[in-house]
């Protein structure tokens, strides 16, 4: 069995599973946020009316809650959703609620790794499509709709159809100025936005071995944009060190067997990658930066679970140091812990000196909710993960997806710029 099959077999209490088996698996962790949480509450209300007991969750210690999409609240409906979420966690005794304005909080997927909320070998589901991110820690991580999440909260388990696995063998260390984001955009450009539909996308090879845990998180985050059920990387010493630094030592490292089977194997020469962007209006619409259209940008946005981890901010700072931005540029660290490290290590000063506005952690303009959304005809280069029409604001705005290095280089020139050409 490969790693995904082994984790699902463990979760289902079976000695083995195969692709297309349907298994009833115990869930180890579940996450809700300020969009899926109110949806869950609605489902609970309905169940109560049907006479089903909703007095207790299966295990409140395995549930955690993030406030990310609509914080800080820009209007009263969002504010009321946060109140609802707070009442929910209080009523059910959920202690891990990362609240805006009270120390550590941030984008749910970032909290999942920054706070070691999810561990290798676990079955983790979240009420958000980018839950795939956390597979980089060696967990089975996937998103569900809020009705399914409500079921998991009450019952602690859920059905899964064991996916087939596409194995992406990445050969060689990424060159300087090229990040995991460039690589995954290239992959999505090759296989398409449904190229991984219903599949597991597993990454391995020397390219992944060389990569930091944060870079692997970027790869797994974007598997959602290829339609994958989950993204995953087998855990190694880097993952152990990463989680140990975050206070966790008790880990069950599950890896695939030597004779693990994969439905397909793709090979990419990661050592030969180039800075890449996805043009509007699809993550699969990719081109290398040096062949990107010469458009006048209005804005550079460095934020989101995909593109505002600490490593992403370090990359942006390496470009912005001693330079001034030519267009509106916002950097929103994805969690308070990252914000704090950026402050302690002088990154915030570099950003502010360059003329950048640094905002609070939030999904913000990535989902077009608030905090710097785009006007009609505005063009943005962004480290986020989606560029569908209207995703970041007006339906006639345009977003180019890129790495933090490309977004920072483009902020300096006002055009889509390869960081090697600065």
């Amino acid at each position, binding site marked *: 069995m490969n790693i995904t099959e082994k984790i699902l077999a463990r979760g289902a209490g079976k000695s083995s599973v195969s692709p297309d088996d*349907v298994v009833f698996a115990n869930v180890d962790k579940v996450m809700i946020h300020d969009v*899926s949480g109110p*949806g869950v509450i609605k489902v609970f209300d309905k*169940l109560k009316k049907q006479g089903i007991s909703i007095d207790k969750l299966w295990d409140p210690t395995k549930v955690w809650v993030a406030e990310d999409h609509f914080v800080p609240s820009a209007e009263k409906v969002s504010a009321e959703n946060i109140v609802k979420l707070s009442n929910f966690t209080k009523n059910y005794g959920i202690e891990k609620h990362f609240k805006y304005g009270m120390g550590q909080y941030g984008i749910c997927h970032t909290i999942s790794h920054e706070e070691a909320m999810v561990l290798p070998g676990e079955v983790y589901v979240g009420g958000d*499509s980018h839950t795939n991110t956390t597979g980089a820690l060696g967990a089975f991580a996937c998103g569900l709709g809020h009705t399914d999440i409500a079921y998991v909260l009450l019952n602690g388990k859920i059905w899964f159809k064991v996916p087939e696995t596409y194995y992406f063998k990445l050969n060689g260390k990424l060159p300087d100025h090229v990040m995991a984001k460039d690589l995954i955009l290239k992959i999505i450009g090759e296989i398409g936005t449904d190229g991984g539909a219903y599949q597991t996308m597993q990454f391995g090879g020397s390219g992944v071995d060389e990569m930091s845990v944060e870079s692997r998180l970027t790869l797994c985050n974007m598997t959602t944009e290829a*339609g994958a059920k989950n993204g995953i990387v087998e855990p190694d010493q880097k993952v152990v060190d990463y989680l140990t630094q975050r206070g966790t030592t008790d880990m069950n490292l599950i890896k695939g067997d030597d004779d693990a089977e994969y439905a397909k194997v793709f090979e990419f020469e990661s050592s030969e990658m180039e800075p890449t962007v996805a043009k509007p209006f699809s993550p699969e619409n990719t081109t290398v930066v040096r062949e990107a259209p010469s458009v006048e940008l209005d804005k550079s946005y460095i934020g989101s679970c995909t593109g505002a981890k600490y490593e992403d901010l370090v990359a942006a700072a390496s470009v912005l140091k001693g330079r001034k931005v030519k267009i509106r540029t916002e950097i929103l660290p994805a969690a308070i812990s990252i914000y704090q490290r950026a402050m302690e290590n002088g990154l915030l000063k570099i950003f502010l000196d360059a003329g950048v506005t640094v905002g609070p952690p939030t999904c913000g303009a990535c*989902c*077009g909710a608030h905090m710097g959304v785009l006007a009609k005809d505005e063009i943005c280069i962004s480290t986020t993960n989606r560029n569908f*029409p209207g995703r970041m604001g007006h339906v006639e705005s345009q977003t180019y997806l890129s790495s933090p290095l490309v977004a920072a280089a483009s902020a300096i020139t006002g055009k889509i710029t390869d960081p090697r050409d600065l």
Partner: protein
Amino acid sequence: MEPFKSVSSIVTPLDKVNVDTDQIVPKQFLKLVQKSGFGKFLFFNWRFDENENKKSDFILNDPKYKNSQILVTGDNFGCGSSREHAVSALLDYGFSVIIAPSFADIFLSNCFKNGILPITLDQQLVEKLQQENGAINVDLENQIIKTPSEEISFGIDSYKKKILLEGLDDIAQTFQYEDKILEFEKESKLPSVL
């Protein structure tokens, strides 16, 4: 959930691939949590201009399709965000059947939780149905789509079919059988394939 038996209506052909849930329900409506009333937000940016006037060139605004309950569309329908609001909007607008060559995973699962029948058909058949002018009938019990000129059979998981036919809420349904499921899991040597 209302029991699903059969639906007869003309089809609305939405000839697009990779329709993502941001297009089905834009972000500004996500903070609303009611299950009813989302229909007015369906394909909001395609249906309305910035002054919220109807765009005449979008198919849903053609009065001919006003009472259509069957949407026939392209590959990978419902990709992107996991928002269940997308399914609520389609249902509230009046669509109870969606036919496409393929669906995004989370969207597909959300359909069954809310009483929409998603049907996966070969590309060629989907294109043919998109050309169909008259009413067609979708009969879930017999798994047949009847057009004026032919009958097309479709596949569906038997458990999901039962849920839709009986209008059973997925969660409530499973809870009724929790003891039996646990017993089965414990005793059975067969792989569980519900």
